[in-house]
């Protein structure tokens, strides 16, 4: 047992062919362990969330009752991506745990949908949203340090309020970007190795080693996504996060939540 399975190529080389599929179970166990760990942390160790500043009540009253958080295209992207991602994960891994069905067509079609939706998202985020709002900045990193120190009982100033996205959203997005781009880029080249109406099949674009590395990266990112998606669903359904999760359906968050957690100066308004 290991992480990568190797085989002999016709030229006698040892080449990677894919990951060992028991890693599926490892990913599921990792996801579950995270849930349990997080619940214990919240229950017994976490301190109440505090911020360095707040919006004066007079200012809050002037805000609209619902603050726009996600535009319709952004929400649509999220749900299309979620559907494609779940289809990809189930079609990839169910057959590996013994559920028989013609998975490949579901998998490649969902892969194409995901790729197109990601391209759309990159364009949308670059030109129609505040591109930098989702990437951790200097304040986020400083505040993460402050939170950590405070959680350990050390002295540190209270962290500032978030911009549009809390730090954990940003970190999660970063992880999804890495895993998502790994699966889509490798998946794109893997598409040429199967018969689809999209391209003339060509499995000889790369040598055995490159192909093997591509399958391996696809698999590693894929099992990583199992854990990541589990964690995402867990957070989305946590009671204290529901206020944010609902904005992925309705597009808005409540004014009180906004005023308490978000700094209007850091949350740059976006075009629709």
């Amino acid at each position, binding site marked *: 047992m290991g992480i990568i*399975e190797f*085989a*002999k190529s*016709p030229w006698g080389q040892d080449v990677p*062919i*894919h990951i060992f599929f028991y890693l599926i179970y490892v990913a599921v166990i990792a996801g579950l362990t995270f849930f349990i760990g997080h619940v214990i942390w919240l229950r017994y160790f976490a301190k109440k969330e505090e911020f360095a500043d707040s919006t004066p009540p007079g200012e809050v009253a002037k805000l609209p009752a619902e603050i726009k958080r996600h535009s319709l295209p952004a929400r649509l992207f999220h749900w299309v991506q979620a559907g494609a991602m779940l289809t990809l994960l189930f079609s990839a891994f169910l*057959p590996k745990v*013994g559920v*028989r*069905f*013609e998975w*490949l*067509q579901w998998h490649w079609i969902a892969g194409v949908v995901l790729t197109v939706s990601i391209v759309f998202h990159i364009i949308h985020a670059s030109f129609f949203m505040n591109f930098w709002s989702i990437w951790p900045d200097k304040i986020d990193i400083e505040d993460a340090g402050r939170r950590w120190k405070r959680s350990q009982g050390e002295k540190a100033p209270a962290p500032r309020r978030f911009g549009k996205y809390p730090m954990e959203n940003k970190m999660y997005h970063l992880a999804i970007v890495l895993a998502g781009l790994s699966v889509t880029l490798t998946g794109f080249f893997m598409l040429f*190795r*199967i*018969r689809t109406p999209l391209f003339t099949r060509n*499995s*000889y674009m790369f040598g*055995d080693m490159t*192909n*093997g590395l591509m*399958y391996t990266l696809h698999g590693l990112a894929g099992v990583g996504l199992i854990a990541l998606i589990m964690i995402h669903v867990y957070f989305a359904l946590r009671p204290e996060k529901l206020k944010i999760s609902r904005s992925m359906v309705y597009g808005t968050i409540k004014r009180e939540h906004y005023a308490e957690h978000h700094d209007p100066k850091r949350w740059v308004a976006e075009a629709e």
Partner: protein
Amino acid sequence: MAVIRDVMPAFELFQPATIDDALNLLDKHGSEAWVMAGGLDSFDWLKDRIKRPSVVVDLSQIKELTGVKEWNGGIEIGAMTTLTDVVRNPIVKEKFSILATGAESAASPQIRNQGTIGGNVSQDTRCWYYRSGWKCYRAGGNTCFADTPTAINREHAIMGASRCVAVNPSDSAPALIALDAKMVIRNKSGERVVDAENYFIGPALDIRRMTVLLPGDLLVAIRIPSTWAGAKFYFEKVRDRPVWDFPLVNIAAAMKVNGDNIESIRMAVNGVAAHPVRLTAVEASLVGKPRNAASADAAGQLAIQGAEPLRHNGYKVPLLRNLVKRAIRGVEEAKWA
């Protein structure tokens, strides 16, 4: 062909005397166990040291698995019945002669004396890249060595390929599909009966297996209902040598005619895909049609719709078309145009 290395890797050999004992062993050892019938395919794998099971369950001592008996007007053939016994059985010869012809066209007399009907329908593909031990898709890898520009793929699939282009080599399989046979499968949790056409699976469903059998499963019998008893049958196998050779393409058809018209028909071919292919569209197009050259022509054309030959097996397309024509109208009507 793989080099026979002669000395098999060590395994624990069990020779149960009853089906129940065999099922207990298969259940206990799961995917570590190898079911052995006549051993003709099994010993290839073991001697080539490509499959290395830790347990072999030899069915040869299970008397309940052999013989042909009457069943509901049709017959039930024990999975361990040899191909020779199937060929020589008087009921098979009289009512289901297409099976006798199909089984008799397999391999050589010696092989048919030892090879069983259960083994024949459950045998693995003959793709030599796979059988030589290359880690191809079917062997758990990420490549089909038979589907490259320089591959030797004259015997491979022209349809139904999903990454793997290997074909099913059984001669009895299309005959059983044409006869609407039922495969009786047992495991520790019970029995299930699967239509012959669904017994065989392609790489899209499971690239590592040729049949629906999973670890723990045993094919115990094949039932042939009376539905097609005494129908008009056609079996033809095209191969490189007249004996001891696997089919390039074979065809089996069972037909009921009413005057000049085709009342009903079942038709299956093998050697063109990873599983024997029942030609349902062709069947549907023929029902109620006169059995003449025009119907045969149209059916032949329909049969090859969607065929995607590889570099060296383009000949299988006209071969398939003409076999379908011959199955409907007879040898004299088919042309190699």
